[in-house]
């Protein structure tokens, strides 16, 4: 593995040792199989211990792993007949968001998602998965089209955030995000959203107003990146790790807060370890969600979505009136 994470170091060392030993026995006439077996058992236990006790910061690292599967990786594995549609019919085609029509186990659907690049060249083309307003407007155009033809909508969320830039502001980044939240609330077809990587703030939410919102075990969803939070709260971006621990950004935290519906389990060590296997886990939850939503009428879908978001928030309804008047 070319790219190793900080907390995986002991594992990497152990694996190296085992392979060295194996190599050694190949060429010599000594039997180390006992030793190897013992080490492998230890590796197994260590892997189990490490991956069962990941800290929020560790999960941030996994969510940002360069090999973490992207929207198109899952589209390729979960859908057939995918046809990508481009453009917002207004200004441009933002490749930081991909969308199109496809079949999901025979069911016509619209699929939309943030799209990061696999290498620097693709990342520049896709702006590192950070959309401009035209990206959100393309997504909305496709959602409206899905609504016209009665197709369920599936959104994959994976962005550091909406792109902060001059051009984005000029073309109304805020309006584009706001419009999506507004229109998604009223969609007459089922909407299922899955956070597959980083869920960065408003830029993520603009594809994330759904009847169900699920999250991969090692993905994150937050109002701001840990670095950003640390910079604002403590004026020191290097305290990102501390911010990650306090801000409640992991799937487990969000489930407890009632923001998401289900945690989609991940392959041990992260989705990038086995994309095919990971796609199966997503397939499972997606099928269940759609089967629950398809019998609902348009009114029921809108009401269910509203109820879901109405529930979120934390406050006290006190008897006492606090007033300056």
């Amino acid at each position, binding site marked *: 593995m070319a790219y190793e994470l900080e907390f995986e170091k002991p594992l990497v060392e152990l694996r190296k040792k085992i392979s060295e030993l194996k190599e050694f026995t190949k060429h010599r006439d000594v039997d180390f199989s006992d030793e190897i077996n013992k080490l492998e058992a230890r590796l197994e236990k260590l892997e189990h211990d490490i991956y069962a006790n990941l800290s929020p910061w560790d999960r941030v690292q996994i969510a940002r792993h360069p090999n973490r599967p992207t929207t198109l990786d899952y589209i390729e594995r979960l859908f057939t*007949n995918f046809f990508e549609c481009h*453009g917002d*019919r*207004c200004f441009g*085609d933002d490749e930081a968001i991909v969308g199109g*029509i496809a079949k999901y186990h025979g069911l016509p659907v619209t699929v939309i998602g943030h799209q990061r690049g696999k290498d620097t060249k693709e990342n520049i083309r896709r702006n590192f998965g950070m959309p401009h307003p035209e990206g959100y407007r393309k997504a909305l155009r496709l959602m409206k089209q899905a609504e016209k*033809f009665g197709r369920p909508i599936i959104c994959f969320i994976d962005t550091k955030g909406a792109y902060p830039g001059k051009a984005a502001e000029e073309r109304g980044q805020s309006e584009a995000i706001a419009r999506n939240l507004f229109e998604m609330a009223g969609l007459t077809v089922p909407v299922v959203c899955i956070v597959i990587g980083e869920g960065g703030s408003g830029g993520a939410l603009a594809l994330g107003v759904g009847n169900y919102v699920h999250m991969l075990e090692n993905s994150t969803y937050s109002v701001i990146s840990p670095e950003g939070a640390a910079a604002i709260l403590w004026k020191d971006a290097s305290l990102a790790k501390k911010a990650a621990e306090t801000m409640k950004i992991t799937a487990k935290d969000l489930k407890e807060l009632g923001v998401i519906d289900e945690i989609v389990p991940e392959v041990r060590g992260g989705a990038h370890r086995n994309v095919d296997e990971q796609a199966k886990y997503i397939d499972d939850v997606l099928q269940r969600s759609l089967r629950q939503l398809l*019998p609902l009428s348009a009114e029921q879908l809108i009401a269910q979505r509203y109820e879901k978001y109405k529930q979120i928030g934390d406050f006290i309804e006190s008897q006492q009136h606090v007033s300056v008047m």
Partner: protein
Amino acid sequence: MLKDLFSKKKKYATIPSEQAKQDVPEGIMTKCPKCKKIMYTKELVKNLRVCISCGYHHPMSAPERIACLLDEGTFCEYDRHLLSKNPLDFPQYMEKIEEDREKTKLNEAVVTGEGTINGFPVVVAVMDSRFRMGSMGSVVGEKIARAIERAMEKSVPFIIFTASGGARMQEGVLSLMQMAKTSAALKLFSEQGGLIISVMTHPTTGGVSASFASLGDYNFAEPGALIGFAGRRVIEQTVREELPDDFQTAEFLLKHGQLDAVIPRHELKDTLTNILDIHQARGEDEWRTS
């Protein structure tokens, strides 16, 4: 004088003579306007009129388009009986129409009808740029609106292939109003949940691009097709600005968010089949019942 020693030799440009122009016999050979390669017309037609050496998409007549797209023997044409009048008494308009009718064997610049694409029923309207540059007069507008109405009655998708210079000047404001007529028909069809696919071919400009050509649920174009509202020369003279080389090409429009995709002619039938298939929603019943 000394200066004469260094004077440049005059260069002479060769002007192609009328004779040279006629070296290529009409019909048998075709010269690609892009790569200038000369090839047998037969060979070109066999390749769906896509240049064998550079991939340039030569214009296709409406009957050719229908033959290569619809399943054999399924096409049934609508409204062959509608003919243009001369509402403004425009000089020589009728003669020109007569000429084009003779030349193309079509009654007007659009052919409409129904048929199937790999088994999927559709209503199609295919414009033909050989007839008055595919311009839209009362008959074109009426034929398209009637075709949309048929698609509505039958609840089948409507596919339009555009190729047009725009509104037909000789019919004045009546031709302008065809933009509203066709768009209104599409609106009613769309409200009923009808599927609209627009395929823009070279060229799609003016009143046609500003009405039904741009109103598809899916807007496609053929590679290199010229698509735009105002002509390049008009824009350059108005804004006094140099325009990019690829200005108003299909690829330019894709980049600027106006198209869902640019689809090479050879892939068109498969792409349309896939989209029709997804909209037919077979296999959906299993989901709804279980």
